[in-house]
């Protein structure tokens, strides 16, 4: 018995240590980038791992913010995230609610039509030509409209709406609400966990969008942060450019890249804690039903 207890204790110790190490492995790269981005560039170039900033400087951040189209790019990214997420959520809720009503004629067929798009698609090129012929090339709409609804999220919403008691709908109708009133005044408020979760999913997808931005946007004024970061990455990984930054120009290229990583990561991570309260619950619902 005593031996057993010891085995169990040893496992616990090992388990806690392993999980803690893993957590460190997940968080440390971010910490290192954050710290290095506010450290003097010449120290960063020496390439040591550091835990705290040395010779604190915000020169990398001021450089970024003074770059001519950075502010525009930042605004673009916020715009497609906020407006895009709003459009996505609105369309998703409006579509999923009627489809969740089994009594509605054709609801199942429509749900299948949505589901089918998860299994088969026309591919990249037909979508590209469509966006082109709609005149959306090089506009921010091309980053919000073609991907407005995620079929998987519709499936999650439908199965969630189906768990809500029908009496709610009846009581709304007695109070004189129409279908839109019932949806927005009764159903949406009690579906907050799932709505918060899907909002987070859509927002993260919008903020991190890369493929579509690469495909549809060629005008630097309509770039998003991810594309700009990738551009920096190409420029600054070529050693020739690093060398061409002459001695008297401070070699800030390396920290500019790090600061850019911070700027394109931190805003979306800030959303996470706000929604986390709902989200743990919503994710469980989604994963169990979906």
């Amino acid at each position, binding site marked *: 018995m005593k031996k057993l207890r010891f085995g169990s204790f040893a496992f616990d110790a090992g388990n806690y240590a392993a999980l803690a190490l893993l*957590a460190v492995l997940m968080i440390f790269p971010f910490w290192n980038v954050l710290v290095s981005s506010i450290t003097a560039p010449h120290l960063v170039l020496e390439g040591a791992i550091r835990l705290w900033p040395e010779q604190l400087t915000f020169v990398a951040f001021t450089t970024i913010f003074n770059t001519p189209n950075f502010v525009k790019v930042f605004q673009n990214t916020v715009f497609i995230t906020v407006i895009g997420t709003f459009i996505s959520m609105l369309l998703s809720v409006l579509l999923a609610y009627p489809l969740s009503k089994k009594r509605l004629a054709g609801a199942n067929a429509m749900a299948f039509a949505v589901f089918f798009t998860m299994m*088969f*698609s026309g591919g990249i090129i*037909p979508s590209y030509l469509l966006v082109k012929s709609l005149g959306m090339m090089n506009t921010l709409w091309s980053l919000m409209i073609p*991907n407005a609804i995620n079929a998987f999220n519709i499936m999650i919403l439908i199965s969630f709406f189906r768990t809500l008691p029908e009496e709610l709908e009846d009581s709304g109708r007695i109070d004189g609400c129409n279908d839109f009133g019932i949806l927005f005044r009764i159903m949406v408020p009690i579906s907050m966990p799932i709505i918060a979760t899907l909002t987070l999913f859509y927002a993260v997808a919008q903020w*991190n969008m890369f493929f579509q931005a690469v495909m549809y946007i060629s005008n630097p004024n309509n770039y998003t942060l991810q594309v700009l970061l990738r551009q920096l990455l190409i420029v600054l990984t070529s050693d020739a450019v690093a060398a061409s930054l002459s001695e008297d120009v401070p070699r800030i290229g390396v920290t500019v890249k790090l600061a850019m990583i911070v700027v394109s990561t931190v805003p979306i991570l800030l959303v996470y804690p706000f929604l986390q309260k709902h989200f743990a619950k919503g994710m*469980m619902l989604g994963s169990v039903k979906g």
Partner: protein
Amino acid sequence: MYLMALPGLLYFAVFHYFPMWGIVIAFQDYNPFDGLMHSEWVGFDHFTRLFKHPDFWLILRNTLVVSILNIVFFFPAPIVLALLLNEVRTAFFKKSVQTVIYLPHFVSWVVICSLTISLMNSEGVLTKLVHAMGYPQLQLLMDKSLFWGIITVQSIWKDAGWGTIIFLAALAGISPDLYESAKVDGANRWQQTIHITLPCVMNTIIILLILRLGQVMNISFDQLYIMGNPLVKEVAEVFDTYVYQAGVLQGNFSYATAVGIFKSAVGFLLIITANYISKKTSEHHLF
């Protein structure tokens, strides 16, 4: 009610079903000036060209290798992680670890690739470390033999933590009575895990594995496109990056559409097969 669904249905009609019709251009010599209606029909020419092209076998191999590495190494990671987390009794510790390991999921591929590149370029910390340990190569990112490994590790780092959610939900659903009776029978924690926990989540594991098998053709464009460079092209090119290259950049719309159709069709078959298998082997299926 129908009015409510209209915008959403319209969206699916325009952005999903209309492009499906657009696949006819794979059987034409599509020319933007002549449009869909007036381009010359060429039958299966683009497909024969594709199958004869040496690139095709490279792309297919790369896609399959990356997917198989994913299934072998990435797929089990969240399961193991969830089992370990499940053994943690300290609620605060468990919650903190969860919060931290979910984090990388919210970060874009561009950022993750940037982190990788700054770790592994010629001045990166990791490069210096392996060099000190005797690995001769200084350009780790241009080393073809390392590429698939790097891609797999990146995927695990990004999403293994996130993947635990669904397993933790399944683990939370196991009745505590089962553990109580096992304890009475004298089972230790390892035996409890083997004989109670694993069988209880087996269904979830099988379903997710089957779903994963249906996704073999889909590999993240973002990740492969950013990590790829001319020196590793031979191992980095997959269907989506190839379609982008041939279609959007070079303007071979018909040929690129044919490549896309091949990918979609195989993907469709895989999902149907996967669903069929799961119907046969368990009561769970998608449709």
